[in-house]
């Protein structure tokens, strides 16, 4: 019994390990390069993390119930193309359209996964290929630059409010919405239950398939939103706009301490994870880490960060 109470006490501390890791990293970089700690730099860092965070948030929903979504960067790129192609005609509607396409795509991927019983790893990898092809075809294989007029629709992404970049505010809104979804709604609870023990959730009357499909739809919608924001930040759409964002997004989720096997995790952990990734990357630039060593340092830091942040008490077997 006492051991039990001890473990709960330790649990409290363990919860804050990801945050502590982040703070230590920020301070470490700041000590070496004080410019890093200036508010403007930190705000910029936050702004630059927004897209990564939104992508990671989407995939958190899927990882929570034990799946994975490998289609997110193709979805984000496709969303940017959709925005670029339709913004002249639809105005703000283009953003809605892109996110709606995301929801439908996620729905289809989720259905392929649960109905055909294809592992999510393969279903979403394949879906990513389909989306990439779709983006290539509709964009006629080029990147589409947005003109002055179209950029007017994107001040909610590119502007700033009282010195705070708008994209940071968008990121915070996503944080609040996703956090509520994950921690306060039946959907979030069911996801955790499915991730931690699918048979028991199923036997308890949880509509497992439906929850999964919702999670994939959410993931793709968030990816589409990230693509919309990317289109705003880069004022264009391109089938490769979100290239190389897939693995950092998943890494952000795991570095935050969410279990890749599902059941344990939260959106704020993902936020911390995304920030850790950003701080390491940008911190290396600040510290002037040799360019040839950057990948090596990054890989090592990923492993060390996960070793610190992961909550092993809730994971039966580490695989």
């Amino acid at each position, binding site marked *: 019994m006492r051991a039990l109470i001890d473990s709960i006490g330790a649990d409290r501390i363990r919860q804050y390990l990801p945050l502590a890791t982040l703070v230590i990293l920020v301070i470490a970089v700041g000590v070496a390069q004080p410019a890093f700690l200036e508010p403007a730099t930190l705000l910029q860092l936050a702004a630059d993390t927004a897209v990564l965070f939104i992508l990671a948030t989407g995939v958190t929903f899927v990882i929570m119930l*034990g*799946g994975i979504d*490998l289609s997110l960067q193709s979805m984000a790129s496709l969303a940017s193309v959709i925005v670029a192609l339709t913004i002249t005609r639809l105005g703000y509607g283009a953003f809605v359209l892109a996110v709606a396409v995301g929801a439908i795509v996620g729905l289809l991927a989720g259905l*392929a*996964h*649960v109905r*055909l*019983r*294809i*592992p*999510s*790893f*393969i*279903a979403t*990898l*394949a*879906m*990513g*290929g*389909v*989306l*990439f*092809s*779709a983006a*290539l*075809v509709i964009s006629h*294989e080029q990147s589409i630059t947005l003109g002055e007029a179209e950029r007017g629709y994107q001040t909610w992404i590119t502007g700033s409010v009282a010195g705070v970049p708008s994209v940071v505010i968008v990121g915070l809104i996503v944080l609040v919405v996703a956090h509520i979804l994950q921690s306060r709604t039946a959907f979030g609870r069911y996801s955790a239950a499915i991730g931690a023990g*699918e*048979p028991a959730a*199923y036997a308890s009357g949880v509509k*497992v*398939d439906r929850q999964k499909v919702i999670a994939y739809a959410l993931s793709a919608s968030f990816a589409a939103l990230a693509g919309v924001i990317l289109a705003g930040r880069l004022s264009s759409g391109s089938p490769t706009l979100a290239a190389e964002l897939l*693995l950092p997004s998943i*890494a952000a989720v*795991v*570095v935050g301490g969410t*279990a*890749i*096997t*599902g059941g344990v995790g939260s959106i704020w952990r993902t936020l911390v994870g995304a920030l850790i990734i950003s701080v390491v990357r940008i911190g290396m630039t600040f510290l002037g880490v040799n360019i*040839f*060593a*950057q*990948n*090596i*340092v*990054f*890989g*090592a830091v*990923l*492993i060390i960060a*996960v*070793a610190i942040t*992961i909550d*092993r008490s809730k994971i*039966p*077997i*580490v*695989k």
Partner: protein
Amino acid sequence: MTPSADAESPRASASPKSAMHRFRLASWAPVIVLVLLCAVIAVINPNFLSFGNFVRIAQAAMIPLVLGLGATFIILMGSIDLSVEGILTLSAVILSLLVLNGANGNDLGLLAIPLVLLVGAGVGFINGAVHVKLKVPSFMTTLGTWFIGVGVANALLGGTAVRINDKLVRALAISRDPLVGLPWGVWIAIFCFFVALVIQNYTRLGRYIYALGGGEDLAGLSGIRASRVRIMAFTLAGVFYAVGGILAAAQLGLGNSQIGLGRLFTTITAVVVGGTSLAGGSGSVQQTLVGVLVVVVLSNGMVLMGIPPSVQIGVQGLMIIAAVALSMDRKLVRIVK
């Protein structure tokens, strides 16, 4: 869907006498998919069935096969290995720097090969040791070593590509055996396949890998040291990836740090298309061979069938969904993740 506990199945189909083996009809489904695929492509472009194309498919399949063999062992344990590209790249680069090459004065010849295999084993060992000792999920451990492997390869090269001038190493990809007419590299891959088959079927390591995939806690009760098995499996996989690196370097005739690009997802896709379960415990290297052939034939066939480049990757995605959906034995799988 019935994610019922295992408890139900034995009651329903209790027939102790029926000598059911691990290889059941369902595992033949990928073979049927492969045959169908070949038939369709051959109808559209009869060149597909030429001996020349057979050789080219074998050539295209040799590296994915070797990589898939290594990955199969990891996936059988229920883990995942993302360091395929990292180890392959590092091995290819080190090989190119050790044999006669255009950048330095080394000329170790075939002696370089055992050294490179050792490097693969070393990185694989690090994967396993970090994963087991620090209890970091294999997904993250190997993601980290992926970055590190490519990073070290890049640092060794300083951004260049190094041409391999060693005749013997190049011969792996270029020269062919006098009998069948297959490049030696293909024979190496076939040899690796049989080595993997023996490890899988006739060694304790092979057995324990299945046991860990079937239930790590239960395997522990039988006195199996899970951590040792895991470390050995990752080391073994590292050796296979190193072989892949040697073949890749021989094929392209150079070592550069982009040589591994895009190979990871092909490898895992091939393993899964073959029918090995990502949850661990079921599957085999034979199935991986079939999976590799499905993936290779598919991409070869798309060019032969004249599918426009921009939709190829999408068609490939849909075909893979179809292949996996067809070959999935839904009754055997309780939970799909």
